[in-house]
């Protein structure tokens, strides 16, 4: 009975679906001028969903998007000047994502601008059970973990809605004739 109780208590964090990797970004945080942390677990997501307006098209999309999500954990940092943070500061995150359960599906490096975006998927069999996003710019770092099954296309399409300006990729320089 005692063993069963201990097993049940040990299972609690799994049932609560906490973040799927440690967002240990102390080195980045120490250098940042401003940071935003958002940690939403299943119960807070459910509460937020109740306050989403189904008649508002954007909020209706959000409600649909978060249906299969068990947690959203975001850390976003701003820096006063470029070169404040280094790639080594993100190594604790990347080291965790190199584990067998994670697969990198997209990696874009903007050499000229000095930024990059990586998208990692956590798979259980053929099913996606989590997403990790590492987005960097010279003056910004964003690390996201979404636990649960999320529609990545729908998430990308939310960009440009509710105050997010649509980002256009940098135009290629025209060749002189």
């Amino acid at each position, binding site marked *: 009975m005692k063993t069963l109780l201990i097993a049940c208590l040990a299972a609690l964090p799994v049932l609560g679906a906490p973040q799927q990797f440690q967002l240990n970004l102390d080195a980045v945080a120490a250098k940042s001028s401003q940071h935003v942390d*958002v940690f939403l677990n299943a119960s807070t997501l459910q509460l937020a969903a109740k306050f989403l307006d189904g008649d508002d098209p954007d909020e209706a999309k959000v409600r649909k998007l978060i249906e299969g999500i068990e947690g959203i954990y975001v850390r976003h940092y701003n820096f006063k000047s470029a070169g404040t943070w280094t790639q080594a500061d993100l190594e604790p995150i990347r080291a965790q994502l190199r584990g067998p359960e994670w697969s990198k599906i997209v990696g874009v490096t903007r050499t000229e601008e000095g930024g990059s975006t990586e998208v990692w998927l956590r798979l259980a069999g053929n099913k996606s059970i989590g997403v990790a996003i590492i987005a960097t710019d010279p003056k910004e770092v964003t690390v996201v973990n979404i636990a649960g099954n999320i529609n990545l296309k729908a*998430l*990308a399409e939310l960009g440009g809605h509710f105050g997010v300006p649509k980002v256009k990729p940098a135009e290629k320089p025209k060749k002189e004739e």
Partner: protein
Amino acid sequence: MDWLEDELRRALAREEPPVGFAKRVIARSARGPSGARRWLAAAAMVVVAVGAAGAWRQHQGYQTKQELMLALRLASAPMHRVQLEVKDISQ
């Protein structure tokens, strides 16, 4: 006029309270408000507490919704950018 004076004297005459009057007053004041008043006060307190809890939950709900929108803004912006970049490369 004698009858009037007699009436006044009788009406204004000092009269001793009945036996045990002071004790009864003290005992009553020690008992506090009556049962009905106590129930009314308790009901009012319950109404105020329920109202405050509802307002607090409403406030928490809106705050959590704002946090969700912020989290999705931060998560969707790089995804949107990557989507456009990948589309641009593939074209």
